[in-house]
């Protein structure tokens, strides 16, 4: 009997799952359903398109429609899944079509959250997730002079970089005392603040948005912060987090907890249903607890692991064991990477080496679990390897802050002694 697989979502998790499913199961029926109007594109490069640095669209597409035809994969564009019926093994769509499956993968990611304030949906207030968003942002940014950025995290800074690249003078409104305060101290964030100022983007601390101001046509003209201060701007970028796309799972019995809960094999609590990518709260075998990743490499790997397990014979499941990383590449000569889980843990160490170099590492139960490197990324792969190998660093944590740290400086792992 021919197996039938359905994937909801054609982001990198769904796209890599489709590729792996076809490799693992040459004769299966495979359907990919997406509510976007275009096949898989490079979501992490659309910011460069919005900045105007990559003016053409073609190189940003990873799969064209031929890619699916060549692999005999049915691609359903502009199709929104509204409900799934796990007992009947059926997916229902808004367009009225039903898709039966033997195994289902949910890879639906998230949608940018709106600020819960007045006029947060005014013209000129942008959220950034899709290529369509990037096109709108690019068009508007090109003709704007003053901007406002909200959201002091990894995605908010993309809006700041867009303002910088487009010559928009902007204020970056942050709630605390520093950018990405969950992972950076003021020492580390200070380096980023200086880099933002060089782009003509001014960080404004202890701020935020009370409401947006609009003109008679409903176009945003500014923002008033909770202190009553008004900032001018006809171009506004808001990135305050994602709401995970799980509405269609209501009534399905699938366990959710700000995302879909899966084990290390990407399997949900409901038989034959898997999830991958940003949407998962997965069991992290290194952390030994459930965790979330919001990065390209992790979504890609989870998609592949899920696909392997959807097709695997009993007892041959592959576990997801991965240390992700996420770079900021907007600042000339100032590389930045965050890896693993830099916002959690029971201990941390940090050091500033110069006005442009800083390192922070987070630990749990004596093991390295994440970190942020600014200015020098030579140890990125080494630290990721230490995390993967779950090295016991009790008594050795400070060594990792040595400017020229090398793996060999650590005591050999117990079993090798």
């Amino acid at each position, binding site marked *: 009997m021919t197996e039938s697989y359905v994937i909801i979502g054609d982001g990198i998790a769904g796209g890599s799952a489709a590729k792996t499913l076809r490799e693992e199961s040459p004769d299966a029926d495979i359907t990919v359903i997406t509510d976007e109007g275009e096949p898989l594109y*490079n979501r*992490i490069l659309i910011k460069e398109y919005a900045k105007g640095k990559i003016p053409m669209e073609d190189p940003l597409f990873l799969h064209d429609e031929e890619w699916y035809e060549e692999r005999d994969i049915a691609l359903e564009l502009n199709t929104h899944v509204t409900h799934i019926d796990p007992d009947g093994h059926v997916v229902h769509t808004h367009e009225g079509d039903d898709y039966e499956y033997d195994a289902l993968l949910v890879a639906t990611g998230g949608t940018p959250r709106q600020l819960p304030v007045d006029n947060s949906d005014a013209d000129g207030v942008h959220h950034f997730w899709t290529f369509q968003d990037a096109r709108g942002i690019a068009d508007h940014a090109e003709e704007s002079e003053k901007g406002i950025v909200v959201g002091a995290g990894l995605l908010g800074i993309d809006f700041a970089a867009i303002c910088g690249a487009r010559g928009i003078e902007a204020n970056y409104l942050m709630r605390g005392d520093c950018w990405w305060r969950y992972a950076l101290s003021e020492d580390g964030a200070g380096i980023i603040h200086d880099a933002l100022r060089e782009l003509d983007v001014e960080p404004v601390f202890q701020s935020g948005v009370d409401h947006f101001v609009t003109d008679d046509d409903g176009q945003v003209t500014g923002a008033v912060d909770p202190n009553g201060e008004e900032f001018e701007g006809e171009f506004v970028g808001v990135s305050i987090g994602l709401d995970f796309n799980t509405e269609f799972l209501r009534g399905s019995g699938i366990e959710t907890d700000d995302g879909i809960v899966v084990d290390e094999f990407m399997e949900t609590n409901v038989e034959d249903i898997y999830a991958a990518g940003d949407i998962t709260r997965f069991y992290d075998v290194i952390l030994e607890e459930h965790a979330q990743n919001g990065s390209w490499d992790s979504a890609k790997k989870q998609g592949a692991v899920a696909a392997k397990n959807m097709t695997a014979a009993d007892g041959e499941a592959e576990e997801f064991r991965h240390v992700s990383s996420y770079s900021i590449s*907007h600042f000339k000569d100032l590389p930045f990477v965050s890896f693993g889980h830099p916002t959690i843990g029971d201990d941390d160490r940090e050091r500033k080496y110069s006005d442009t170099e800083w390192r922070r590492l987070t630990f749990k139960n004596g093991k390295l679990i994440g970190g942020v490197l600014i200015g020098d990324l030579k140890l*990125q*792969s080494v630290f990721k390897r230490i995390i993967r190998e779950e090295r016991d660093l009790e008594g050795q944590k400070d060594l990792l802050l040595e400017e020229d740290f090398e793996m060999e400086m650590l005591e050999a792992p117990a079993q090798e002694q």
Partner: protein
Amino acid sequence: MAVGTSSGRHAHLSAREVETVPADVTALRHVDQLDDEAFDQFRGLVDGDTVNVQPAEEAPFEDGEVIVHTAYYRVTLR
């Protein structure tokens, strides 16, 4: 400006900073799309370090590929 090279039995890799993405670019990746090994090799090419020799077919880059990091780099494979 050439910023680094690595020679090998079968492959010679070099990376050059470019201002724009050439119109005929065949491959374009963000640095986060590189696995750890490719990332270290890329960093080496950019820094001008000596990078280990490898056969062309195992190179983690395509000839002419542009890698987006804090600048854009075009990788050449000879």
